[in-house]
Each structure stands twice: as structure tokens, then as C-alpha cells.
């Protein structure tokens, strides 16, 4: 795609603009798709000991000389509790009902939702609101009685830390494993770009759970990826 994969040390800020250190002259950077947390972006603005960031980046951002994508602060959308509010958010901003339905989501901070979740632990998936990587979660249908009992205690101790959803039947896809080709569960992340119009990038991220029967596709837990082509948007 002609997009450079850079580290903080490949970039520098001069007179409020961001530049890339290349083998020739410094090249100005207009857009950064970042993969590091807000707190590490710029040691002059956030964590002063961050070695990952670019000193002065935030001033350049404030001056409108660089677009950071996703914008600082958008990490709030990673909080899984937000998901429960998505239909309301859509309605608030557009005045319309959402076209795609949400996966039903129970926010355990709400008393009724919590009661339902506690009654149905063996059927649903419960996740930490700020969790990622497939950690700190309960998959009710595959969990043992003990795991469910343990999780119940943790959930009751701090309900607002959790959301729950019904267990989704993930699709399966032929996958090369040690014994040959076998079905393994996958999920798909398409990348949707919204500007003057809505476009879907021709590639996407398909994650695959390599363990038999597993629904955990996260790479940090041994999940794999599959080459993905989006043929039409």
C-alpha cells in the first residue's frame, strides 16, 4: 500500500510538523495510523518516560498539521460497556433506528442486566469492559461448574467491570492443522473508511482459533490469521 511501518524513533517534529527520517531528505507525514496507547504518544505531553512516542507530536496534532488515526481519546470506544449504548448513540446522532442490529449486550452495571447475567452464566459470554486479548472472560457453555462458580464471585464483587452477550456461533473455515485440514472458528474484521463516502478496504483481518472447538481467536492466545480478500463493497 506504500504505507511505511514506523517506530517512534523514525519520526520527529520540527516547527510543529511531523517528519519521517528517510535515507534522503526528511519527508513530511500527514496521517499516522497509530498502534500505541494515548499515554505513550508524546513524552512531552503524556508519560514523560515513554520511549515509544514522538516528542512534540501532540503540538503538531493540535496545530492541525497531522491527523492521528485513531484520534487520541477514541480509546473509550474500546470499553466494551459502550457497546451496549451503540443503538442509542446512532439514534441520538442520526435520528434514525440502526440498520444493523446490535448483538444483545447486558451491561452488568445495571441491576436488571446483572440479575439476568447471574441467572444465565452457563449460557453466555461475560467479558471485562476494558479487557482485550481474550483474557479475563467466561465462555459459559464451555466452562466447568467450578469456573462458573469462581467467575460468579468475581462478577458479584465488581459488576460494573463486566458486560455479557449470548454466545455467538462463529463461522468455521477449513484450516491447515497438524493432522491435515479441519474446521476452525473464525471471525472477520473488515476495515471501513468513512470520508466523503464509505469505503471498505479490499483486505481485512480474519482471525482463526487454532485450537479445536475454541472460540478464542486472539493472537495473544495462539490464534492465527488468514489471508482475506474483500471482493465487493
Amino acid at each position, binding site marked *: 500500500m506504500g504505507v511505511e511501518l*514506523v*517506530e517512534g524513533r*523514525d519520526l520527529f517534529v520540527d516547527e510543529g510538523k511531523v517528519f519521517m*527520517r*528517510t*535515507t*534522503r531528505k526528511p519527508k513530511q507525514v500527514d496521517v499516522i495510523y497509530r498502534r500505541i496507547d494515548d499515554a505513550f504518544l508524546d513524552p512531552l505531553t503524556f508519560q514523560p518516560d515513554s520511549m515509544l512516542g514522538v516528542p512534540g507530536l501532540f503540538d503538531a496534532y493540535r496545530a492541525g498539521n497531522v491527523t492521528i488515526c485513531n484520534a487520541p481519546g477514541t480509546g473509550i470506544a474500546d470499553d466494551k460497556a459502550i457497546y451496549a449504548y451503540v443503538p442509542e448513540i446512532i439514534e441520538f446522532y442520526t435520528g434514525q433506528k440502526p440498520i444493523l442490529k446490535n448483538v444483545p449486550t447486558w451491561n452488568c452495571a445495571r441491576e436488571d442486566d446483572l440479575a439476568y447475567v447471574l441467572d444465565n452464566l452457563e449460557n453466555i459470554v461475560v467479558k471485562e469492559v476494558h479487557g482485550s486479548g481474550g483474557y479475563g472472560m467466561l465462555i459459559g457453555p464451555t466452562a466447568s461448574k467450578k469456573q462458573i462458580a469462581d467467575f460468579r464471585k468475581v462478577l458479584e464483587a465488581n459488576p460494573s467491570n463486566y458486560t455479557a452477550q449470548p454466545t455467538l456461533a462463529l463461522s468455521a473455515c477449513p484450516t491447515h492443522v497438524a493432522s491435515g485440514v479441519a474446521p476452525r472458528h473464525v471471525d472477520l474484521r473488515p476495515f471501513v473508511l468513512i470520508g466523503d463516502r464509505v469505503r471498505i478496504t479490499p483486505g481485512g483481518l480474519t482471525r482463526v482459533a487454532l485450537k479445536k472447538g475454541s472460540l478464542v481467536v486472539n493472537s495473544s492466545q495462539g490464534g492465527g490469521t488468514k489471508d482475506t480478500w474483500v471482493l465487493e463493497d
Partner: protein
Amino acid sequence: MLGRTASSLFWMSRYHERAMNIAKLLEVAYRNAIVAHGGQNSLDDWRFALLSSGCENMYMAKVEEVSPKGVISYMVFDKDNPCSVRVCLEAARNNARSVRTSITSELWEAINTTWIEFSDTNPQSITRDRLPEFLSWISQRSHLFRGALLNTLLRDDGYYFSQLGNFVERVDNTARVLNTQYWVLLPDNDVIGDGSMERYQWTGILRALSGHRSYRFAYPNAKLSAQNIAEFLILRREMPRSLAHCYEWISGSANDLGLYYGESLPSLKMADKISSELSDTDMSDIYHNGLHDFLSDFIVQNNNFASQLSQDYNFA
């Protein structure tokens, strides 16, 4: 191209070349140590490997006593020795990994498989008897790496940086090996007694630089002599590890890079200067001004070239 990418390509090649050069030095130590030779303590052969790779002081500080086992383990496997084969192969592989998308899959497979197989090798299993086989495996993997690079890499700036790293390292190694034993290459050091001592030192140097057989082709009618060997390894352009040959490539790649970017930077001028000085001199000049001084100056000039190059092209 990012400065960091150029740096990774440069160092990927440098480290891979260094790994092979170390293997060659050990091969010579092994071979010479098992061949009986009058009066010579065979531990000197292992010391030669330590000296030529520049790690004798560090070795003595850590291991204290020179022994075949100690030298093999230090120079091949030691994680604390910045020029062990292990550290070089790992650094080469890590540099390649950080530019994984800028190199071909053939090149990546070559370098990655070498590292995987090397790290699967139990150091205890490489006894003195198994050493030659293992060292020759390292050489072969290094040839595969070079072959994959030459046969598959796109001829753009990345290729030139990879070539520069290779030849800067190679020429440094040749100059160091010669400088470690420069006295055996002085013209008045011609054969004492039956000459077996000299022959053994000379063939050691030639073998360490993969030039034992090709010397015979370059000087078909001459016996081994200090002056011919020095000329062969310093000035003969057809010898692929000679200073002159390496600088022909370095200045060629530096010029290609200048053309590719459309600008001529100070490092290019330096490479041309070093290269033409090597063409304009002969062994009598070098001997006249002192072989040891010549080699020591050359090593400094080569280092200066490498740091100018990284300054010119923003190697972070």
C-alpha cells in the same frame, strides 16, 4: 526509504558476513592445530582465531585460559561475546525481521532457517570432532544467504545498502586478519630453515580468507611468498576478499546509490578515493611506507567510510 530500514539492511548483511568470517577463522585454527608442526604450541592456532576476530582480551577476561573447547564455545555460542557466531546470526536475523516486508521471501527463509537451526543446536554436541562439519554448515548457510540476496533482491536502494554492509564487513575482516600477522607477510620474512613454519602461517591466512586454492591460479608459477600473498589479498582485484576487490564493489554500490537518489554525498567521494588509492599503489610502495601502518590506516579509513555513509543516509 526509512533510515532505519537502510540501517537494518546494512547490518543484516554485515552480521551475516561476520558470522561466516568467524567460522573461517575457527576452521583454520582447527586444521592447523591437528597438523603437527615443529616447536609450535597448537594452542597458538586457537589464539590466532581469537586475535584475528579481535576478541582475545574479552576472552581472557572471561575464560582466562586458552583451550580448544573454551575458544569454540566462546566464538561460536557465547551470548556475551559480541562477535560470536550466535550473536551475529541472531543480530542478522533480527535486522532482517524488522525489514521483513522489504526483502524477498527467499532471502528471509534463508536467514530465518539458519537462525532456527543454529538455535536448535545444543552447544555440548559440537565437540572438537564435530566442529568442521558444523563450521562448514555455517559457511554454506552464508553462501545461501548471499545467493538469495544476489538472485532475488530488487536492484533498488535496499540492495545497495545490503551490498555495502557485506563488503564493508568483508574488507574489515581481511585487513584485520592481515594486520594480526603482518610480520609474516613482510618481504624479508622469506623462508627460514626448511620454510615449514612460514608455509603453515601463510596457508592459514589464505584459508581464513578462502583464497588457498585461488592463490595457485593467480600465481601459477610462483611458490608461496610473503609478497605475493600480501599482494593477492590487498591489491589483486580478481580475489573476492581482497581490499581492492571489496572497494571496487563499495565504490560501485556507493555510485549506484548516488545515481539512484540523484545526488552525490561525501561518502561516495570517500569510497572513490579509497578505491583509487588501492589501484594507484603497489606492494613496494606499501612495504616502503610500512605494511602495518598501511593496514591500520586502512581499517580506520574503512570505519570512517561506514560512519559517513550512515550519516549521509540517516541510519538511525
